């Protein structure tokens, strides 16, 4: 870009308006010039300000002696211009100033014949491409979940071992030291708090990996492109394009996503988007998928998790399409422009901040909501309602929890998971989705507790933690090239490890409740978890934003859709001979 003729710019420049406007400015300037009190202003400047409707100057003219003739000329001028342009006069004047500046810039600047494309432009041509944009988005999401499941699994196992082994051993030793071993306090700590909270904390490495991947996508500027690409798809389907912005927020947590619907203009669009947001799989649901996918689909766990996220998007778009053409019929004309930030290399600090804030939030939830729920569930599991057990010393099948969950269980029988264990986990999952895992961990942990560990010393335990961390790191490094199919160390030849403890109990439970179709029942269970009400916080947000009626519509609708989808998966799969 070259600047030429700068000398010409030293002379004063007047914006020349269209002749009819210039005529009115001349008339008005003359009238202003004849009013002594207004002569401290440049007449042309004041004329332009008055035509544009500057209220302060208008008052000054009204109060000036002999101001009335100026006002008369002003009113006549405005009337004539409105008749010609059929538009606000300030719009006409501003438009002409922009034209003037544009013409001036073209005269003094020489631009290259073709604008040089920036790197962002070149990347955008591919990632926001009409045809390539969506496959690229899907491929990146697949990579995210492959990383989340494959790379994080060794650390997941490490945390599981550390909590189930050394931490539990040391706590039990401490309780023994103060004479509480074998009491209900030990049961509360081990079967309630450690099993419940620990069962969820096990998934911290998985979530940290997910947050790491999402932070890289966000900080690099890609997430905005993903929203743009999906917006376009939504728009093509006749849905409100802007709806996908809150829906992308929903991948993290559905609660802020419900509030983000406020960016939509009409109430109908806000409610419709609010109904779709819960189908976006929030990070709290990930531990459920990872747990069951690892047990039942160990070789394809990444693909299963990716498939569930995609199913959530498809369900949201499908439902949105149906509602948009029935309950939420509108003349949908909402063109919009989106600003795509330039790409940049994410900083380590930025990524760490994003990742840590989200992980810390998850850990805080484990220490509050999940701990409280775990204690409540332990209490229900400790109270006998039948049989001859006593408090904290009863068969699980005879507990209050089993009795209550057993009432709901028949509803889920056609879906393949009609046991009180699975239905109990789903009921508690209304509080928060992580609670599904903590409940399963408590139930199946107690069922497997016969495998008591041998007494160990603190040094043994610490040694085990360090050794297994090193093992997890090596396994993770092995897993990274495997994502793209490169087997550097012959790891694929290794046998799949037998599921242990909790996993074995869960596997056995699903096999029994489904009549030998455990994998199908687990898949149906995950589909149900994906589609039914995310948590009470989302219900509260929906009530606050859309009112009681739509809140109930949302809750009941999600339950019905989840039930039907899980039924189709289980019964359809059986008919097709799968699982």
């Amino acid at each position, binding site marked *: 870009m070259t600047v030429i003729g700068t000398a010409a710019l030293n002379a004063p420049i007047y914006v020349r308006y269209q002749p009819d406007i210039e005529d009115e400015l001349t008339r008005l300037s003359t009238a202003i010039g004849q009013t002594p009190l207004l002569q401290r202003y440049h007449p042309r400047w004041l004329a332009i300000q008055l035509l544009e409707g500057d209220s302060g100057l208008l008052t000054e003219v009204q109060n000036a002696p002999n101001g009335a003739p100026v006002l008369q000329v002003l009113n006549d001028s405005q009337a004539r211009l409105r008749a010609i342009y059929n538009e606000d006069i300030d719009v006409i004047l501003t438009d002409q100033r922009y034209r003037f500046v544009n013409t001036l810039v073209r005269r003094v600047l020489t631009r290259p014949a073709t604008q040089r494309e920036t790197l962002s432009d070149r990347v955008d041509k591919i990632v926001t491409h009409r045809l390539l944009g969506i496959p690229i988005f899907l491929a990146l999401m697949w990579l995210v979940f492959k990383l989340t499941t494959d790379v994080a699994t060794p650390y997941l196992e490490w945390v599981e071992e550390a909590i189930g082994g050394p931490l539990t051993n040391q706590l039990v030793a401490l309780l023994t030291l103060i004479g509480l071993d074998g009491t209900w306090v030990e049961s509360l700590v081990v079967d309630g708090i450690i099993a419940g909270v620990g069962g969820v904390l096990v998934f911290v490495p998985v979530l940290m990996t997910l947050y790491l991947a999402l932070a890289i996508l966000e900080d690099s500027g890609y997430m905005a492109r993903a929203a743009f690409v999906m917006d376009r798809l939504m728009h093509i389907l006749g849905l409100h394009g802007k709806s996908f912005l809150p829906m992308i927020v929903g991948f993290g947590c559905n609660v802020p996503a419900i509030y983000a619907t406020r960016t939509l203009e009409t109430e109908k669009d806000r409610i419709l988007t609010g109904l779709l947001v819960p189908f976006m799989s929030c990070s709290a649901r990930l531990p459920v998928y990872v747990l069951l996918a690892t047990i039942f689909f160990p070789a394809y766990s990444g693909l299963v998790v990716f498939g569930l996220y995609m199913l959530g998007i498809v369900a949201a778009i499908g439902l949105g399409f149906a509602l948009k053409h029935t309950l939420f019929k509108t003349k949908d004309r909402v063109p919009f422009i989106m600003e795509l930030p330039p790409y940049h290399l994410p900083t380590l600090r930025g990524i760490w901040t994003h990742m840590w*804030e989200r992980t810390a939030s998850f850990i*805080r939830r484990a220490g509050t909501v999940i701990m409280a729920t775990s204690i409540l569930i332990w209490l229900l599991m400790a109270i006998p309602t039948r049989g001859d057990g006593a408090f904290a010393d009863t068969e699980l099948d005879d507990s209050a929890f089993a009795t209550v969950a057993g009432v709901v269980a028949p509803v889920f029988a056609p879906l393949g998971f009609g046991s009180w264990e699975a239905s109990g986990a789903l009921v508690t999952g209304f509080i928060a989705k992580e609670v599904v895992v903590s409940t399963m961990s408590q139930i199946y942990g107690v069922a497997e507790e016969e495998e008591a560990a041998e007494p160990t010393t603190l040094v043994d335990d610490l040694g085990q933690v360090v050794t297994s961390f090193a093992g997890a790191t090596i396994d993770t490094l092995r897993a990274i090239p495997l994502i793209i199919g490169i087997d550097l160390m012959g790891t694929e030849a290794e046998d799949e490890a037998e599921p242990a403890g909790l996993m074995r109990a869960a596997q056995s439970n699903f096999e029994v409740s489904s009549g030998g179709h455990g994998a199908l029942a687990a898949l149906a269970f995950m589909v149900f978890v994906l589609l039914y009400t995310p948590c009470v916080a989302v219900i509260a947000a929906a009530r606050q934003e859309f009112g009681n009626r739509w809140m109930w519509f949302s809750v009941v609708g999600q339950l019905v859709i989840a039930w039907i989808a899980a039924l189709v998966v289980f019964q359809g799969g059986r008919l097709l001979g799968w699982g």
Partner: protein
Amino acid sequence: MLQQVLRAFEEAREPLNLVDLARQLDVDQPALEGMIAYWVRKGRLKESQATASSCRAECGPTCASGAGPCPFIGKMPRIITLVGTEE
């Protein structure tokens, strides 16, 4: 020129990005920003952006992170919509 900006919004069949619109109208992006800002002041266009601050204010105790800023909301892209075209 100002009218061209509004016309581009009215005639858009699908979402556009700001850079493409500037190219389409053959104006510099800062000039386009100025014109958009003008129409926003006039109430003919509307700008919106979901940000963490909106979560901090609205989410409150129901938010996963308690009273602090909600961590689960990235800075979403700024979007500009034509006002008065919706039912």
